[in-house]
């Protein structure tokens, strides 16, 4: 079980800002790191990997500073965003070459490399030159290189970029199973849907600052100045109107909308906890059965755009 702790870390590159005053506590499981281009995601990763020394503050990975603890690098696997191959090598050569740097003997390295590549479904092409690989195969090779030595911490920068859906699915399944093994995984992706599928834990960075971190549902609850909208759809569509009327009697419902064509109502509330607790009882009392209670508000898409636009402060 590995933990990553950032204590008020600032990293500047000369006069250019990398990240500013970042405090984080990342535990086992998958954590998604999100933000616009140039927000500081890659800098965060670099500092964590020990590739860059924080200008202010300190970082601890398993209790030690990654910048001058080279042993730590046997515990961290990193998948960079950009291709970093020796194109003339085969995937097996490439992965085992890096394993040998991690101090495995040649035989061991080749064996581990092959196993790892087979696990990722590259058994048919792993002896071919990397030059001939498609984007998806390249991503898999990068992931194999980062995971073949079984590191406890995985840092993945845009691992799904350019991969076709099958590769994407396979990588996600692998990431899920590594997470279940108790690895600490930090993953960045521009496809929020992918992150949402993998995890509820996110870190959202913009302009070098951490705007929010933690469970996305909890983050949404903390943004109490924006009323939550909840979509409800009763099975019996004749109950749409009575249901809205009934709900508007409660003083914690601030607005109700009827979407007749879609067979849904939308309720707005500032006291979402109260709503979620009392709503089942009200349905019981009114003998109304609903087939859907969802809030589009705490999807990652909506959360992301609200936070990046700064709506939580207005």
């Amino acid at each position, binding site marked *: 079980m590995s933990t990553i702790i950032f204590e008020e870390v600032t990293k500047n590159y000369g006069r250019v800002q990398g990240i500013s005053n970042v405090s984080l506590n990342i535990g086992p499981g998958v954590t998604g790191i*999100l*933000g*616009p*281009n*140039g927000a500081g995601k890659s800098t965060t990763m670099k500092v964590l990997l020990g590739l860059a020394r924080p200008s202010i503050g300190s970082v601890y990975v398993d209790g030690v500073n990654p910048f001058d603890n080279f042993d730590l690098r046997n515990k961290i696997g990193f998948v960079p965003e950009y291709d970093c191959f020796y194109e003339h090598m085969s995937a097996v050569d490439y992965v085992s070459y890096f394993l040998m740097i991690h101090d495995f003997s040649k035989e061991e390295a080749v064996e581990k490399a092959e196993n790892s590549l087979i696990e990722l479904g590259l058994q048919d092409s792993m002896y071919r030159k990397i030059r001939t690989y*498609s*984007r*998806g195969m390249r991503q898999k090779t990068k992931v194999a290189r980062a995971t073949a030595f079984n590191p406890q911490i995985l840092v993945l920068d845009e691992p799904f*970029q*350019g*991969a*076709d*859906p*099958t590769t*994407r*699915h396979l990588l996600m399944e692998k990431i899920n199973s590594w997470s279940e093994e108790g690895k600490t995984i930090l993953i960045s992706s*521009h*496809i*929020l*849907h992918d992150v949402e599928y993998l995890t*509820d834990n996110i870190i959202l960075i913009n302009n070098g600052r951490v705007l929010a971190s933690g469970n996305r*549902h909890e983050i949404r609850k903390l943004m109490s100045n924006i009323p939550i909208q909840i979509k409800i759809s009763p*099975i019996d569509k004749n109950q749409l109107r009575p249901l809205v009327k009934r709900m508007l009697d409660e003083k914690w419902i601030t607005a109700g909308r009827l979407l007749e064509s879609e067979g849904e109502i939308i309720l707005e509330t500032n006291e979402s*906890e109260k709503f*979620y*607790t009392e*709503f*089942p*009882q009200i*349905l*019981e009392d009114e003998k109304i*059965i*609903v*087939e*859907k*209670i*969802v*809030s589009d508000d705490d999807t990652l*898409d909506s959360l*992301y*755009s609200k936070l*990046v636009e700064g709506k939580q402060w207005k």
Partner: protein
Amino acid sequence: MIEAKNVIKKYGQVTALDDFTVDIPKGKIGILGPNGAGKSTFVKIALGLIESTSGEITVLGENLDKNSIEIRKKIGYMPEHDCIPNKMTGVEFLIEMGQVSGLDYQTATQRTHEILGHLRMGEEKYRLIEEYSGGMRQKIKLAQGLVHGPELMFLDEPTSGLDPNARQEMLETINGLAEISNTNVLLSTHILQDVETVCDYVIIINNGKLQIKENVKELVKRQTDTIQIRVGENSDEFISILKQNNNKRNIEITDRWIRIPYKNEESFKEIISAAASAKCQLYEMERIAMTMDNIYLEVVN
């Protein structure tokens, strides 16, 4: 919009399209398929950039054998890879592209600024393209395909590498295009979510053959037989009540959600009353809908 009949395309020994037949309706169409499945080959044949080995293809009602160059007046193409010159300003480049498509200088200029306005490009349009961000380059790439007002637009991975906001903006523009200015869109992508949000129809190509052609709205309306729930405090009590009611059925529990099989409307009632008596918050309850991911994996694998 596009009709292909028994199209075969071979590159030496490799068969990229193998007896490919499809009738693509008007609207916004998504093309999916693994790498090397024949997607881009099909798009290039339909554009008239390469010739098929055999077979017949009709685009916007015109047979491609006779008219492969004239047809491009009605077609816009946005390639996947970066392919715009660095040493020109955005406006210069788009005007040039407009003129190469056959617009006169004044119309090309007017049209360029109109499109860049839609794409929300500000004063940076007068700067050199080499200074542009990834999102801006992508916009220029889209704009060059639109500048001559095509009836049909081919988009190859238009959102790859964009951050979430830029991606959202790109998808909205594509949607707007099709709905308001009657441009038909053919979207080839690896991000299935994009197809779900933008397209009316989806076709999946694998091994050079058409696998399915379906209406997207119908596809994702299909529901699975699983209800996903998310609850708050007292979840233990809630689960134990549910388990009593569902002793014969299996309930999947993770720390993110609970999934129980859907039998009939009673299933919802059971959940609601369990939540009511356990006094626990019912954050979410919904039958899981089919997603493009499920359908894609089902078809391709």
